[in-house]
């Protein structure tokens, strides 16, 4: 087995172009996905903010305050411009939307009426608009919504009780402010005036130093590319068949299963190397802190590499031709990557998680999330690694049985 492994490793590294592609292609893809997911936000470079043109048709002070407030949101840059110029930018695809403060904004706010505020957008950029809307709504609700309700309450009391003493009214309004802020002891004057008191609390990722997007890019892409690399094991066996060397191996006293184990060991070595290079690249290029939990990282690399290489020999044992290897590997890898979260993070398609559990990608990505994002203890990572080892072991047993049954048909 070791002799077959040594020969396969020698053959693998003798093809310089293939070796380069095996390691370079995932690096290129990781870079692209990291950029797409905003994975560089923790590196020295700043990510580009979304530019949102804003037209203050009324030119009121309250509108200016709100615009300044929105401008302070990380990743959002407000551009004050004329309505027609802004529209042209959207029409030409230079910007996704315009935020318009229409005439009567301040009066409507004081009277507690529906606010004349509008977001005009390019329908083709719905995904970007969705993100913008969620940011705008949360900020505007924090700002305008509270002020509007306070004004309404103020007007209502004055209307019903015109003789109310100003001290009593102030006390009522102070209590209301405390209710809004959710903190009885908080009497921050600035909060009331600017409406910026939006408290956010994250249960996950508070401690983490690495961007979620970067972890998604590295883990997701690396596992997907790993599967494509090990699919070459299946093709390798077909190549041996075509070259007649498989038949010659069977002439020798070597146990046929060892041919498969030798190929699996080659896949395991290449997979471990590939994952190591991917994480080192992420460390040097994007500042991913790979030293967070080295034992867990080593365990996950070994488990992922084992599961992926078992997939490689599974392909080798069920395919009889190059076409079968190509079609089968493409279909299985794309499905596993799609449902397992390699192509898109699972938090944006939660309903898929039910079926994602059958995917090697899912357990691999979740394991790496546990290490880098959730920073969970070794025992938790061990469960995910154990599942990957289990999947790998099951696939290896099935593959060996199938190979023993089919190997003579191959020659």
């Amino acid at each position: 087995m070791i002799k077959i492994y040594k020969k396969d490793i020698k053959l693998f590294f003798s093809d310089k172009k293939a070796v380069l592609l095996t390691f370079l292609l995932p690096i290129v893809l990781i870079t692209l996905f990291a950029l797409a997911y905003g994975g560089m936000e923790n590196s020295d470079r700043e990510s580009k903010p979304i530019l949102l043109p804003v037209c203050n048709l009324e030119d009121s002070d309250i509108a200016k305050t709100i615009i300044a407030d929105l401008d302070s949101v990380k990743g959002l840059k407000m551009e004050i411009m004329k309505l027609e110029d802004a529209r042209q930018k959207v029409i030409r695809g230079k910007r996704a939307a315009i935020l318009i403060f229409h005439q009567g904004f301040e009066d409507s706010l004081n009277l507690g009426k529906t606010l004349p505020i509008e977001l005009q957008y390019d329908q083709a950029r719905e995904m970007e608009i969705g993100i913008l809307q969620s940011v705008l709504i949360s900020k505007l609700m924090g700002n305008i919504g509270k002020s509007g309700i306070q004004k309404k309450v103020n007007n209502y009391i004055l209307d019903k009780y015109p003789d109310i003493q100003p001290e009593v009214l102030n006390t009522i309004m102070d209590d209301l402010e405390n209710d809004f802020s959710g903190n009885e002891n908080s009497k921050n004057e600035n909060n009331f005036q600017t409406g910026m008191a939006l408290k956010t609390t994250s249960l996950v990722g508070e401690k983490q130093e690495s961007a979620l997007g970067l972890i998604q890019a590295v883990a997701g892409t690396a596992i997907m590319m790993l599967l494509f690399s090990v699919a070459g094991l299946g093709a390798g066996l077909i190549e041996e068949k075509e070259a007649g060397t498989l038949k010659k191996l069977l002439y020798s006293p070597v146990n046929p299963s060892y041919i498969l184990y030798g190929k699996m060991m080659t896949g395991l070595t290449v997979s471990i190397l590939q994952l190591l290079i991917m994480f080192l690249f992420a460390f040097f290029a994007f500042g991913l802190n790979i030293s967070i939990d080295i034992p867990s990282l080593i365990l996950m690399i070994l488990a992922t590499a084992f599961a992926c290489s078992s997939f490689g020999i599974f392909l080798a044992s069920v395919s009889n031709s190059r076409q079968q290897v190509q079609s089968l590997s493409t279909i299985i890898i794309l499905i596993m990557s799609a449902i397992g979260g390699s192509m898109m993070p699972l938090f944006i398609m939660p309903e898929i998680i039910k079926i994602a559990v059958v995917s090697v990608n899912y357990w691999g990505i979740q394991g790496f999330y546990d290490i880098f994002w959730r920073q969970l203890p070794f025992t938790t990572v061990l469960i995910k690694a154990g599942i990957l080892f289990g999947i790998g072991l099951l696939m290896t047993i099935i593959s060996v049985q199938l190979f023993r049954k089919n190997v003579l048909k191959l020659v």
Partner: protein
Amino acid sequence: MIEVKNLKKKYDQISALNGISFKVTENEIFGLLGPNGAGKSTTINILSTILKPDDGEVEINRYNLKSKPIACKKSMGIVPQEISLYDELSAIENLLFWGSLYDIKPSIIKEKTNSLLKLFGLWERRNDKIKSYSGGMKRRINIASALLHSPKVLLMDEPTVGIDPQSRNLIFEVTEKLNKEGLTIIYTTHYMEEAERLCNRIGIIDHGKIIAQGTVDELRKISKTTENLTIKIFETTEDKILKLKNTLVQKFAIEDNILIFFDDKAISDLPNIIVKMNESGLKISNIEIKKANLETVFLNLTGKKLRN
């Protein structure tokens, strides 16, 4: 050394082997001749242990193939018809790898590799990748790779297909040398002159059966073809040949305007043949009587040419 008894093999409902039996004694070169589909490859695949027979027994070097397949494998070297080498590895790397599969000390394999590279005239090119070798050179390494574990028996399946005359001669010389050193060889080929030159005995296989076996002289006697009558004609048409076949008792084949008569009786019946040829409109250019070769023996035994 090798004994094959009543070997049978069916693929679905088609019989590939119908009870093949033959014996190869120690230090003998036994030729296995047969047209495509005769059962030659099936026999080779069974002997090389990659195919299980439905029935029959095989003994190689006193080991039963069914009960002691590993021992059989270890005492056998197999030269497959196709060149089975790793193109991206050098000749020496290939040989060291193939040798390493037989549980032999690395130092012995290394020594054997070096001597085989010298024997096959490839010592100077030992570090070159196989992909840079000519077809003949690859064939030589293909044979060398089957000899690394010093087998007692060598199975050579069409080892000279598609190579240059120089490499072919070298392979003949090496095969003869190895045989002189005590190696028992089963040699399959389409080339009659190879079988005639190398083989002590020949088995002719057709329709999954050995239809005759023995030395070339014994086969001549079996096929009653010690001499061949050949008649060259100026020109011919299918009608004229058909007319002649219908009027003559003797069987003949036609190749390049030459009629070849297999049966020795044709020589004594020559005057009658000439008359019938004239009646069929065939004009004779030349008449020859030659000692029968393996080609005509084969033709007489099977009714077909070996290379169709």
